[in-house]
């Protein structure tokens, strides 16, 4: 590649459906990764059709239907920007490389940071981790999945020795006799998933939803538990208390397949129903009904999502629900188990391949000498040259521009100005950098404050793989080439590595394979990813693009090309040293910021149907309705003299937001809700706090203390 030319991004896809202008691919948004067909009309317009894939079964929500509108959007970036001014790729690369060199010479290698995203393909997530460790040689790489999946991931690893969101195919969910959903509003966040819930109810199944709001998902359930924000952990401990009290534990399972039960049993003795009722506000009778419905079912499934996980005690909350599942003998039992509902498009694959601060590809640990040796071998570098663990996402963002903190950062597939907690402070930190580089296809709020913006391809213009919420590896296929002037994330990494002169030295490694280098070709990157993950927990060694095509996706782990994937985990044992699942005793604790006289209300943040994550994509699609709002109960509104539609100001210790009030009876009178998709004065994350989970470093997005007041015109 000549330095001055835009990166070569020729698509390598072999269109499946006969026509050169039609490809079978998946939706660009959430972790459900609905199958869809893209067609390019003779006029050059791209049409979306739902595809009958085993996950979405022909369904799509309005986000998916309208996803192609962003391809030819007028706000699409088609030229690099330096300080907001159009520039050539060559100028942009020169600027970036000079800046990186200068920062690293002055402040050391770790002064350049990388921030990735859970929407990046497996190939990109893998390449980004390698780019940080080999080309930049920085310890400081983390990603927005820390704000998404990290609590469930840490709890899953702790209990099962593995973190795959769903350890069973989604189809099992529709077959469950009892389904407990905690902090999951799939009817809005992944509507086609709700088909499984509808099916489960129609079969006569019991469906219990735990949510401080009566969401569409909760309203459709057979029983809705509406706890005080931040008390899911107490709820889980209370349910397990009742299970123990009524003799409903699976003693044989606990004895044969788990460790740690004795300590858990003693801990939950202190969570008798009346105590939990006082903590959560959930009536004893409902707690008992829930425990009994789970225990009496042949097939019972417990699922958590962000509502339970995005807390400073998210790991322990998930652990408490896993303990409940284990006490009932669910994980590994056919049709039963515990799972978490992954959020971002590649939230699963994105957390497996090394863009996490403490991780190497294949879900390996960066401080494990054997893991370092294996991956360094694939990369063609000396294991000792690999940096150690770096800062986690919030800590990384918070350190930017600070003494000893990074002075430059490259952002791929993320928009932390909107999505990070305590966002005003994080924006300030981003602005304080000597050099901020953002790869995006629109001018996101983060791109808007960057020194250099590199315009990159969208999902319909690139090939690669995604791993959905079931751990099923899927193919993303290019329908067309990226528009002239744009590059790809992979090409950007390859070019920067080359210009920095750090591509891995390509020396011969064990096994005689020639390694090293950065490819802009997703297929070549995937082949390298297979080798890098071989033998790891998330083993992709046996996954090929051809198998993915032929088998409607392949479930990892899949260690060899001649071995089947693994749709269901834990049937034989758990991937822990002794093959048993580990129960860990956990205690309830209060929220990081309790309400008081000055800030007397809880604020919880979340998602709405028509928007996705920071909204950088969906807010630009005219057909998708919406704007910021604040939900509150009419009782509260009446006391504060707020009418539906009034402009209100919500204030926390960290900032404020202004948006129209929406009066709903579906929320607790002591709680406000605001979606986090919006920017400017409508940015909910201006309010959220930066208390972090001690294990996962997940910020407490789901609850903070605020007050609300009308804005007088």
């Amino acid at each position, binding site marked *: 590649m000549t330095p001055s030319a835009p990166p070569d991004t020729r698509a390598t896809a072999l269109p499946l459906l006969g026509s050169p202008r039609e490809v079978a691919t998946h939706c660009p948004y959430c972790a459900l990764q609905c199958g869809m067909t893209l067609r390019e009309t003779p006029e050059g317009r791209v049409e979306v059709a739902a595809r009958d894939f085993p996950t979405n079964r022909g369904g799509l929500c309005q986000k998916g239907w309208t996803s192609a509108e962003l391809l030819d959007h007028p706000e699409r970036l088609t030229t690099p920007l330096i300080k907001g001014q159009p520039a050539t790729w060559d100028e942009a690369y020169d600027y970036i490389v000079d800046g990186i060199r200068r920062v690293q010479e002055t402040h050391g290698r770790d002064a350049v940071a990388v921030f990735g995203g859970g929407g990046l393909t497996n190939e990109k997530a893998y390449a980004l981790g390698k780019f940080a460790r080999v080309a930049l040689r920085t310890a400081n790489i983390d990603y927005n999945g820390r704000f998404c999946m990290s609590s469930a991931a840490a709890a899953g690893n702790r209990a099962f020795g593995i973190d795959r969101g769903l350890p069973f195919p989604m189809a099992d969910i529709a077959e469950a006799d009892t389904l407990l959903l905690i902090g999951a509003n799939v*009817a809005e966040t992944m509507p*086609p998933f709700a088909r499984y819930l509808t099916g489960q109810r129609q079969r006569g199944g019991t469906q219990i939803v735990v949510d401080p709001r009566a969401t569409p998902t909760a309203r459709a359930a057979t029983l809705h538990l509406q706890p005080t924000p931040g008390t899911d952990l107490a709820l889980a401990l209370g349910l397990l208390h009742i299970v123990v009290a009524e003799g409903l534990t699976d003693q044989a399972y606990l004895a044969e397949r788990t460790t740690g039960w004795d300590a858990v049993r*003693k801990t939950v003795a*202190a969570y008798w129903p009346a105590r939990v009722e006082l903590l959560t*506000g959930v*009536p004893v009778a409902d707690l008992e009904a829930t425990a009994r419905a789970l225990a009496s079912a042949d097939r019972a499934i417990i699922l958590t999502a962000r509502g339970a996980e995005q807390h400073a005690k998210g790991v322990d909350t998930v652990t408490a629900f896993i303990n409940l599942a284990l006490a009932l003998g669910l994980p590994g039992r056919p049709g039963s188990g515990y799972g978490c509902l992954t959020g971002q498009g590649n939230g699963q694959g994105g957390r497996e391949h090394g863009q996490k601060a403490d991780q190497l590809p294949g879900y390996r640990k960066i401080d494990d000498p054997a893991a370092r040796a294996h991956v360094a071998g694939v990369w063609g570098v000396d294991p000792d040259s690999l940096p150690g663990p770096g800062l986690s996402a919030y800590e990384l963002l918070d350190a930017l521009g600070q003494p000893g903190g990074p002075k430059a950062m490259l952002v791929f597939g993320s928009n932390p100005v909107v999505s990070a907690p305590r966002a005003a402070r994080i924006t300030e930190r981003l602005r304080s950098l000597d050099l901020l580089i953002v790869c995006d296809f629109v001018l996101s709020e983060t791109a808007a404050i960057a020194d250099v913006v590199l315009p990159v391809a969208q999902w319909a213009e690139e090939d690669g793989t995604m791993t959905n919420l079931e751990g099923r590896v899927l193919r993303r296929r290019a329908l067309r080439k990226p528009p002239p002037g744009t590059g790809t994330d992979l090409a950007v990494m390859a070019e920067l590595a080359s210009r920095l002169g750090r591509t891995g030295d390509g020396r011969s490694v064990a096994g005689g394979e020639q390694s090293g280098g950065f490819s802009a070709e997703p297929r070549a990157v995937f082949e390298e990813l297979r080798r890098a993950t071989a033998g790891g927990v998330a083993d992709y060694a046996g996954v090929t693009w051809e198998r993915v095509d032929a088998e409607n996706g392949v479930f990892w782990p899949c260690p060899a090309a001649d071995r089947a994937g693994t749709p269901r985990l834990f049937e034989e044992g758990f991937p822990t040293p002794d093959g048993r699942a580990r129960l860990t005793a956990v205690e309830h604790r209060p929220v990081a910021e309790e309400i008081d006289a000055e800030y007397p209300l809880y604020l919880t943040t979340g998602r709405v149907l028509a928007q996705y994550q920071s909204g950088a994509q969906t807010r630009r699609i005219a057909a998708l309705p919406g704007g910021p709002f604040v939900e509150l109960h009419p*009782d509260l509104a009446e006391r504060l003299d707020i009418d539906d539609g009034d402009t209100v100001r919500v204030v926390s210790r960290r900032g404020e937001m202004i948006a129209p009030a929406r009066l709903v009876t*579906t929320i607790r*009178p002591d709680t406000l809700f605001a979606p986090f998709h919006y920017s400017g004065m409508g940015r909910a994350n201006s309010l959220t706090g930066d208390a972090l989970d001690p294990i996962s470093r997940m910020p407490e997005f789901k609850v903070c203390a605020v007050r609300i007041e009308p804005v007088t015109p």
Partner: protein
Amino acid sequence: MNHGNTARHGSALPPAERPRTSPHHVIVIGYGMAGARLATELSAASGIEVTVLGAEPHRAYNRILLSSVLAGKHGETDITLTEAAGHGVKTRTGVTVTGVDRAARTVTLDGGEQLNYDHLVLATGSQAIVPPIPGLEQPHPRVATFRTLADCRRILDAAQGARTALVLGGGLLGLEAARGLAGRGLAVEVVHGVGHLMERQLDPGASAVLVRTLAGHGVAVHLASSATGVSADDNGVTLRLNDRNLRADLLVLACGVRAETGLARAAGLRVERGIVIDRHLATSDRRISAIGDCAQFGEVVGGLVAPAWEQAKVLAARLTGADPDAVYVPSSPVTRLKASGIDLAAMGSLQPDAACEDVSFADPARGTYARLVIRDDRLTGAVMLGDNPSVGQVIQLFDRKGVVPRDRRALLLGRSLGGAEAPVATTTPALMPDNATVCQCNTVTKGALVRCWRSGARSLDDVVAKTRATTGCGSCKDAVDGIVGWLSTSDSVGVS
């Protein structure tokens, strides 16, 4: 032994003010719920050595659950509390403290061993009261109090092969014991000296409903009946009342508890009905604290777990220095009757004054009774018996002094928070407004479906393909089907 003033002057600095030069030794007397909780709270701290001395021979257990053991729901091992383990925490069970020397700062054990303390915590709990009724002077296997795990075992032993039981005392514990024994198949009679049950928590109306509910579970209640004598023999127990005699296979005494203050009294600490403490949990000797059932704060003597645990938390914060200024602020307790088939919550005062609102609902036939006393939009008292879906909300509003809903019926009746809209599918297509959203996932209104039909779509598949209705969660399929059916049979909406 000098109990004099030495312990009261300058040498007895509060722990937080004491320089940390050597490990600080805290002795906790009592390994019940308060003592165990304190030990757990202290176990995380460094620089503190803790010795817990328990008189009962077994590990600390959750006394709250004894009625579940009686009812056969919990096994004994299921109620064991987490051991207060941690570096520096030593637990000794089966030892009795015979004396405290405040001058020497030592405690003496029954074997004569002496232990030094820097700070002493009395968590000695309480004892069941045996009422002064003729015939109860001597223990008998068919007569038991209901307080400890040992009591529980005695009752269960006596209940073996028994068919009838008497319970003296219609307070919370008596009723839980009665319901538990009834659940084991015994016919149970409760004798209560006052005119209504749980008179400190309930009003007569709630009591009347509760009596009815209990009867449905095999528990008969005799109110305003004083016991004048007991005679127990190998075949049973006779309880003499003022107007008649009752006979059964066993008798459970549930006549309240008395704070265990013997050690404190002997050590010269200030004792009234309990060991008197201040908001720092200090007794009259600042090197000695008391928490839980043995302690008296203001006029209130302990007896409930929640305040005991709050006291343990505050004391731990002071002793570890985590929050040297922590003070104990009592909260108003919520009484919850835990018994199969009986759902009762009572809190605060049911004696409204002129400034209070008093709202209630009673449906005795269905065992439901709810009463709220409200002052300045806050609950000052409530009782909820039977099926009250808002009970969790009422309890939290009381506990947190939250503002009650403007419409009080929201709390008295049903789920005040729900308010789910009627599903679209239940509405007749003709009556549905055009702007009603039929398919939420794709924001398709009835009007959009009608327009689609009028522009030529003639089947469900056509309408779905053009509007994308039903392609999300699929739950609107019946509604869309219904609208398309209505459009296809209705002349008025056809293409003109």
